[in-house]
């Protein structure tokens, strides 16, 4: 009798325990099951949505990083061998290696300077005029993005990309002192120049908290997409100061000094054109439509510049020269740089066209009138091109291309008539910094090392006297 109760009790307990499972097996969706399933599905959905967002972000990051890394390589290609060939072909045969070495030296030396302190001075938070030393020795610059600059790529990518700009900017100046500057003095001068002129300018316009930064807390918002002011104005104006300070080459302008190889210059010029896609479109720091827009503007600026320069030259001198065509393209590219990510394609054609005419005039007419020996026209093309481009950016920047002011009017054609004035402020500061900084550094280096080679060495040529080599040893 007792056992009957116990047996019944056991059966009831067992039934109570296993019945729900039996019911679940037999009749899904009845009893408690609907609530569990809905919860599980909601959980799965949430997990899937999160995975999707992560995958999209990873894919975007992948695309962005691949493009910016590629652009870094393209910009380095612009210096070596682009600029090396472009400048190398323009000098006399006895100076070809010396000229190429000036670009190459920057590729090596600035890399070290950048790693130690350069990147930090440009891009670490500091004050309005120079960055701090938080990233000295590239501390804290790793795989994690720096959302101030580029939220989808490692900060290391941003750093290496910006390095290539820091390399080519001082290299551009070498065009002004070609064929007469000591290699040692050049190296010291350009390192000091990078630290004292390039870094402050880059920080002011691109660095967080920079005085002229248009989007990261600047007092005067200057639009400079890829370096019209930071790169071309600083280097071009500094080139003018160098040309004036060092004086003319022996024999200039009475002795003929035609380019020893327009072929090399041509090859270099084309490499510059293609590399410039990395310079401008890469400055979008992303692989989306802004990069496409800057890519297109770059191409149109180059083409219009080549056509404009060639046309003016054809009318003035009777023949369209190869050197002129390539120079016109470079002028167009230098001028479109500042606005490449802010202006539309038709505006880019206009900017390129203006560049071709202005820079040609500067190089072929004004330079002779003033008599300075800017040997390879670094000021005529980059200083003037950069300045013109900076101003035109303020006029032709449009929110439809790049809503950089949160949907507000960007350039004058948008209705923001103050932007050209802001651009002028940037241009003025660039000129001032370049003139003052370069003058001081030149004076110091001249007093300590001496800037110019001796007259005898200049006549023999830099290749033999500075480097112990001959560029072309045909007899061997």
């Amino acid at each position, binding site marked *: 009798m007792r056992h009957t109760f116990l047996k019944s009790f056991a059966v009831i307990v067992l039934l109570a325990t296993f019945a729900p499972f039996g019911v679940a097996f037999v009749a899904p969706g009845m009893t408690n099951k609907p609530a569990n399933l809905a919860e599980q599905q909601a959980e799965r959905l949430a997990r899937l949505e999160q995975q999707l967002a992560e995958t999209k972000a990873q894919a975007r990051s992948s695309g962005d990083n691949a493009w910016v890394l590629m652009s870094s390589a393209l910009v380095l290609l612009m210096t070596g061998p682009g600029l090396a060939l472009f400048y190398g072909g323009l000098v006399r045969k006895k100076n070809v290696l010396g000229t190429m070495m000036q670009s190459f030296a920057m590729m090596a030396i600035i890399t070290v300077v950048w790693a130690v302190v350069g990147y930090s001075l440009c891009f670490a938070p500091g004050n309005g005029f120079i960055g701090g030393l938080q990233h000295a020795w590239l501390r804290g610059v790793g795989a994690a993005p720096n959302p101030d600059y580029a939220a989808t790529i490692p900060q290391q990518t941003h750093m290496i990309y910006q390095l290539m700009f820091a390399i080519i900017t001082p290299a551009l100046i070498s065009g002004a002192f070609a064929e007469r500057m000591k290699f040692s003095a050049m190296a010291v001068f350009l390192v000091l120049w990078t630290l004292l002129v390039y870094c402050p300018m880059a920080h002011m316009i691109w660095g967080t908290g920079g005085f002229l930064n248009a989007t990261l807390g600047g007092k005067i918002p200057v639009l400079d997409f890829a370096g019209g002011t930071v790169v071309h104005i600083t280097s071009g104006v500094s080139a003018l100061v160098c040309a004036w300070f060092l004086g003319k080459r022996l024999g200039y302008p009475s002795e*003929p000094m*035609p380019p020893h190889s327009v072929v090399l210059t041509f090859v270099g010029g084309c490499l510059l054109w293609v590399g410039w896609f990395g310079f401008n479109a890469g400055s979008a720091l992303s692989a989306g439509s802004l990069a496409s827009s800057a890519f297109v503007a770059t191409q149109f600026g180059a083409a219009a510049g080549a056509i404009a320069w060639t046309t003016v030259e054809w009318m*003035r*001198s009777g023949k369209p*020269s190869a*050197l002129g065509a390539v*120079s016109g393209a470079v002028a167009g590219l230098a001028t479109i740089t500042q606005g490449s990510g802010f202006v539309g394609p038709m505006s880019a054609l206009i900017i390129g066209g203006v560049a071709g005419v202005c820079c040609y005039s500067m*190089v*072929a007419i004004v330079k002779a009138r003033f008599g300075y020996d800017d040997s390879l*026209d670094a000021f005529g093309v980059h200083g003037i091109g950069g300045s013109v481009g900076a101003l035109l950016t303020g006029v032709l920047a449009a929110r439809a291309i790049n809503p950089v002011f949160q949907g507000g009017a960007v350039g004058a054609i948008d209705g923001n008539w103050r932007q050209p004035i802001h651009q002028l402020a940037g241009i003025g500061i660039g000129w001032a910094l370049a003139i003052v900084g370069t003058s001081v550094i030149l004076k110091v280096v001249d007093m300590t090392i001496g800037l110019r080679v001796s007259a005898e060495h200049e006549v023999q040529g830099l290749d033999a006297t500075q480097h112990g080599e001959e560029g072309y040893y045909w007899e061997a």
Partner: protein
Amino acid sequence: MTKVEAIIQPQKLEAVKAALVEAGVSGMSVFEIRGHGKQKGHTEIYRGREYNVDLLPKVKIEMVLPDNLVQRAIQVIVGAARTGKIGDGKVFVSKVDEAIRIRNDERGEIAL
């Protein structure tokens, strides 16, 4: 033994060489040179700067011949190189004191 030097237009080199070989001239030296006589130069322009190029590319052929070959050589050179325009070039003739074959020390006309 006589040295014959001919300064000619570069584009005439192949014709002059062929004619000389056919005439029996067995050796010559060819130089690429720049020079001018009465021919005016031309102007080249680089970045707006004009350069007056008055040293024009020419070719100089030099040969040392036995005396009996000299007139024939001059005849074929002039014939092959002449276009009738200024800039055709010139031929110079001078006496040679000695000729030595380095390989075997032969001297005189047999060394030519």
